[in-house]
């Protein structure tokens, strides 16, 4: 067997290909293959053998792909879903970098105004609460994502409201909820309402592509001379328990998922953002500690700053089949959540399509069109959308991160 190329190994042989090879081999050694009809014992045995060999061939393909981080990061199963096991093996064993786990969507009830509020709309009557941590379950009635109070709730009297801190019960983007989407109690209580004025953002476990990027960036941190890649690696890896410096200077409230390194004369500017947008000042301070102590060489200067948030306001009219059975509220909530999830993937400084540094208008349209409140079926797919705001690509400055602003929806059933 001549030495194959890698390209030959990373694609599994099919049963038909192996069977053809068997028949060619058999003919070459003098077997009367043309006399073997389908279902004869000879053909049946060869077909069975070909099936076994083809199955092993898949193992060869995976083994070959799994030898390279950059190739393992592209591996998908027969349904097109990412295969993460190989990348995990390489990430940990070759780079000492661990995939970042999914995060829990959460909202802070202590801010002013509170990100999440519970209102007792009874004119008179009993208080709502008090409740201990985890005793009240709130729901995104469109997606079914559930949240519990992450701190005790004091009694909320009739006609008053109070901020409540909540956290998703399940990690990941499935709990991401756009503005006003967390709108009910799991066990409804008459005249008790809730509302979120800030999107709750949860992130899935780190994708293969992002994981690979961090592995590659790790190389920059091997040098004590302040290579560019080192800044991005340290900022995004603070929650990576594999790193020997894990929790050395504390942990931010949210992982940093986006970094932009900008060199100005004599100073390195490091702009950071988490999944929801700009991190709070306390988080910036913690990230700064890691950067200054682990990356910046003596005699050099780095300034770590939160990325500047730019809010994108949306005005759309989406056309939905009446037969889908969706309500306007379900559609609006699903779209709000989808836009929130999409924007958390846009890097600081935006993307490059026809022009650099933008949030592409076409991507926003596609995001809305694919935002299904329920299971996608031919009768439930949105028919069309008119996105009038923004009306074009949204420019994003090199130090800016895009977040959803006010959404003005129109749902037209057709």
């Amino acid at each position: 067997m001549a030495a194959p190329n890698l390209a030959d190994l990373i694609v599994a042989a099919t049963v038909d290909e192996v069977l053809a090879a068997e028949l060619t081999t058999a003919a070459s050694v003098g077997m009367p293959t043309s006399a073997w009809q389908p279902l004869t014992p000879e053909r049946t045995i060869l077909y069975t053998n070909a099936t076994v060999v083809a199955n092993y061939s898949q193992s060869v393909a995976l083994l070959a792909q799994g030898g390279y981080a950059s190739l393992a990061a592209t591996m998908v199963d027969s349904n097109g879903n990412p295969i993460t096991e190989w990348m995990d093996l390489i990430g940990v064993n070759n780079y000492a970098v661990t995939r970042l786990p999914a995060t829990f969507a959460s909202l802070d009830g202590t801010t002013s105004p509170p990100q999440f509020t519970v209102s007792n709309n009874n004119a008179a009557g009993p208080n709502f609460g008090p409740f201990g941590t985890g005793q009240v379950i709130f729901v995104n009635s469109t997606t079914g994502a559930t949240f519990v109070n992450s701190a005790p709730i004091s009694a909320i009297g009739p006609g008053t409201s109070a901020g409540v801190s909540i956290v998703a019960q399940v990690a990941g983007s499935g709990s991401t909820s756009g503005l006003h989407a967390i709108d009910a109690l799991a066990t409804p209580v008459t005249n008790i309402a809730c509302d979120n004025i800030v999107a709750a953002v949860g992130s899935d476990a780190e994708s293969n592509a992002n994981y690979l990027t961090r592995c590659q960036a790790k190389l920059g941190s091997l040098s004590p001379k302040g290579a560019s890649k080192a800044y991005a690696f340290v900022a995004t890896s603070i929650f990576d328990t594999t790193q020997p410096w894990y929790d050395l200077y504390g942990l931010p409230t949210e992982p940093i998922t986006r970094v932009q390194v900008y060199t100005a004369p004599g100073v390195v500017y490091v702009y950071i953002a988490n999944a929801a947008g700009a991190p709070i000042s306390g988080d910036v301070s913690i990230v700064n500690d890691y950067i200054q102590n682990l990356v910046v060489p003596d005699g050099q200067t780095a300034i770590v700053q939160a990325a500047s948030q730019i809010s994108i306001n949306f005005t759309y009219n989406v056309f939905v089949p009446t037969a889908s059975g969706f309500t306007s509220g379900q559609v609006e909530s699903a779209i709000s959540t989808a836009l929130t999830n999409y924007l958390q993937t846009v890097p600081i400084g935006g993307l490059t399509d026809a022009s650099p540094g933008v949030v592409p208008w076409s991507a926003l349209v596609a995001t809305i069109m694919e935002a299904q409140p329920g299971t996608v079926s031919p009768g439930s797919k949105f028919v069309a959308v008119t996105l009038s705001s923004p009306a074009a690509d949204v420019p994003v400055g090199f130090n800016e991160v895009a977040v959803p602003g006010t959404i003005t929806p129109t749902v037209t059933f057709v």
Partner: protein
Amino acid sequence: MGIPVTTPGAVTTFADLWQALSPPWLQGYFGVRFGYTLGIMYDGLEESFAYALRYRFPLYAPTDAFTWLAADRQIDRGENESAHSYAVRLTQWLDLWRGAGGAGAILLAESSYLGIAGLTMEHVKESRNSTDPGGGTHDLTDWDYWDGTTKTNIHVSPHNWDWDSDQKDPADQRFYQVSILDGSAPGHWRTWVIIYGNTKWAQTQTFGDGSTFGDGGKTFGSNATAAEVASVRKQVAKWKSAESIVQWVIVAFDDTWFQYTLPAGDPKLPDGHWGRWGKIATSPVTAMVPARTSTAIYWDGTT
């Protein structure tokens, strides 16, 4: 009735093993050939498993695996680099990355990437003027010289590199910020990479040579392709320190220019007026004249 026990002979392939394990009634003309056909498929599989394991190692990798190894190890293959040379460099990835952020890493990367035997290069940092605790003054230019295989660091005193001290322009941060002439310490973040490129490129593609703007893949001032220029700049960006700005990549076609051994004020070194393409000369008449030598071309550096 039990299965007949057969002790195989010494075999090295599945095809042979099939025959060795076969009972006598399967060792006739057709049986042997049928078994060979089935067994050789597993021989192919076994070899494929072995190659799948070996190919991840650079010294055993086929050339089409280099794309993936380059991404994994962040080491780019030079356009003229042999497969063996590149494979060896891939094995040195951790050592190479340990030096990232310094002049040595940039020069080594460019040398490997360009793959020109005997290629010489220089890396020069902004000149500086400092006073040590004992009151001694140090006015120097910090050079790194690549002789084709190794790097040497040289401090030249008094400083002999003065790119644009006479053309301070606070509005343009690429220019000199603090005057070396007034004794204050200048910014030290600017650097220049000088490639003596006449063994690879020629000074062509100049005004009036018949080319037109938009000619595919060409660049102005030499026969270097746009892809080559992009690759050289990419190496600089990858291996430089995050803090430094490589002001220009200078491709020198006259080996007598930019030599670190030249004394301060030598006419074959920048004279402080090189910040812009032109400067005003007063003799023999007052006129705008080229500020920089035409024996070199100047590619944008990188931040």
